[in-house]
């Protein structure tokens, strides 16, 4: 069969919108697709409604047991932490631990999930900005997590009687400052997971570090000095302290400034690390074919 190129009506590539707006729209669709996947698996109700209530219970009941039959031990706790509401103290710690944990699973495994589904390569075939496929799922995860935080606050209030008496705006400011480091770690993690193919042990290690060194149910000051030295390199330490002081301890903006500066620095570092690792992974995947490998 002979074909003469000059006689053929050649298809021309569809007109496109400028790269920046195109990438933005693509990011919106990646987020929409993630959202549709999220709501089409109904088990999300359990993670949103049941978990916030159940998870802190073990720590709260331990605290009740250790405070003595008349609760006299709580005075010592208040003296060490400066916060009278031990329930609120534990609730904040466990919620931030849960936030980081869920980000490691959700954002950290977002590319790996696509790879296992068989759709990562097909996304990679498109001319969209590569970070779109990491930022899109992170946006949906952030939205879900903000819902989780709101449900947690309501449930802590209704079930445990926790009263967040501090400044709402300062608390929200600290939560906002916590977003870049938490999601930067998640993004860095996503690139490692796609390279290593398996990262459950890394997740267990990171959440173990946060659980022990950042003080989810006790103040960091009770740790030996060498452990406190490690704690100061973990952004979750600053998040827990700042949220507790803002939401439960009536701290002012000036009081919170050192922690906010630390969170901004960690945020810049982890977002940069996440981006560098992502591009390293992308280049390596093109050299080794790792994108298509299960």
């Amino acid at each position: 069969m002979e074909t003469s190129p000059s006689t053929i009506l050649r298809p021309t590539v569809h007109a496109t919108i400028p790269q920046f707006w195109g990438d933005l729209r693509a990011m919106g669709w990646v987020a929409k697709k993630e959202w549709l996947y999220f709501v089409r698996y109904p088990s999300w109700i359990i993670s949103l409604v049941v978990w916030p209530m159940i998870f802190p219970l073990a720590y709260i009941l331990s605290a009740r047991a250790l405070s003595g039959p008349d609760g006299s031990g709580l005075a010592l706790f208040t003296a060490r932490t400066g916060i009278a509401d031990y329930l609120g103290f534990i609730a904040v710690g466990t919620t931030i631990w849960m936030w980081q944990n869920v980000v490691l699973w959700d954002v950290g495994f977002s590319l790996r999930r696509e790879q296992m589904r068989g759709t990562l390569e097909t996304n990679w075939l498109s001319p969209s900005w590569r970070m779109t496929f990491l930022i899109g799922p992170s946006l949906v995860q952030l939205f879900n997590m903000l819902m989780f935080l709101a449900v947690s606050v309501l449930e802590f209030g209704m079930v445990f009687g926790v009263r967040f008496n501090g400044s709402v705006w300062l608390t929200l400011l600290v939560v906002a400052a916590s977003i870049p480091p938490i999601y930067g770690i998640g993004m860095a993690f996503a690139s490692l997971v796609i390279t290593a193919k398996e990262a459950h042990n890394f997740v267990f290690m990171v959440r173990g570090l946060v659980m022990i060194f950042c003080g989810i149910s006790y103040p960091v000051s009770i740790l030996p000095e060498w452990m406190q030295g490690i704690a100061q390199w973990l952004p979750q330490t600053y998040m827990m302290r700042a949220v507790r002081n803002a939401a439960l301890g009536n701290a002012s903006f000036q009081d919170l400034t050192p922690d906010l500066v630390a969170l901004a620095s960690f945020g810049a570092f982890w977002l940069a690390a996440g981006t560098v690792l992502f591009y390293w992974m992308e280049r390596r995947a093109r050299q080794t074919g790792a994108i298509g490998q299960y």
Partner: protein
Amino acid sequence: MSDWAIEVEDLVKKFPKKENKEAAKDGDPTPIKRGLFNFSKKSQVQAEQKCFTAVAGVNLQIERGEVFGLLGPNGAGKSTLIRMLCTLLEPTSGTARVNGFDIFKQANQVRQNLGTVLAGERSIYWKLTARENLEYFSALYHIPPAAAHKRVDELLERMELTARADDLVEKYSTGMKQRVAISKALVANPPILLLDEPTLGLDPQAARNLRELIAELKAEGHTILLTTHYMEEADLLSDRIGIIDQGQIIALNTPARLKDRINQRDVIRMEVAGWYEELASKLQVVPGIDKMVTRRMEGEGMVEVSLHAENSRAVLPGVIEKINYNGTRLVNMNIVKPSLEDVFINLTGKALRD
């Protein structure tokens, strides 16, 4: 702009071999030193030996509007070549241009000009509807929203998916899923399509429909690079065929001319019951036999034997005598016209589906 739709020059892809620790322990007394700054000549040679070459210097030009079939057995390098052309893989050396764009330096333009369906790839989202899938990929290809809606409707109509467009893809048949995957590849109306084993796993009717669609797309002016190991499919659809084996194109021509190469040969196809391994070596030494391949027939306990000979009449008595011995029986025999598979056998001495 380049005259060729696809132009490939000396394209090579090597992958590092996974190190076999036991083999290194037992057989290789000087394992490669690992490290960033190890530039010794010896270590480079060793590193070379530790590579697997999937594509070994392919040169290829595909005309605009042509259907080019890339035919070869599993592991021949077809998919690696396709993956390099669609920018998923970086070549070790060599260059390629797609619609005039360099696959390394202008990767985004290459992606915009290509529609790809990869082999064995799920490629679409089963928890989304067909419409959502196509809208999603329209966004990834930066098509403006209004144009995307129109294009999605057109494709759904064309693929006869409109009635089920809002059902989740997980409820579709394999053929319908493949039609969604092809629609996805067509969403940006790319001039060039890479179809890697597009009919793999489809039932005969769905495969036939897909072949008709490929013919239609060619008629519309799309250039199509089609990889397959179904020789009838390559024969039917392709203007030209490249036969690839061990990472190299070993023959390239129109299907008719490829078959002409061995038209002077007779092809004897036999079905043999009671086959035993030594029989192969006995048949190969029958005077006048050029090439022989065997394939076990599924579920029937028989073996299909293909023999190439210059003169079948001369070799048949000797062949039959060797077969009808010690309980082995010749069940069926035909002298057939050479197919593309026979061309492949003639070139490589092995069957396409080995």
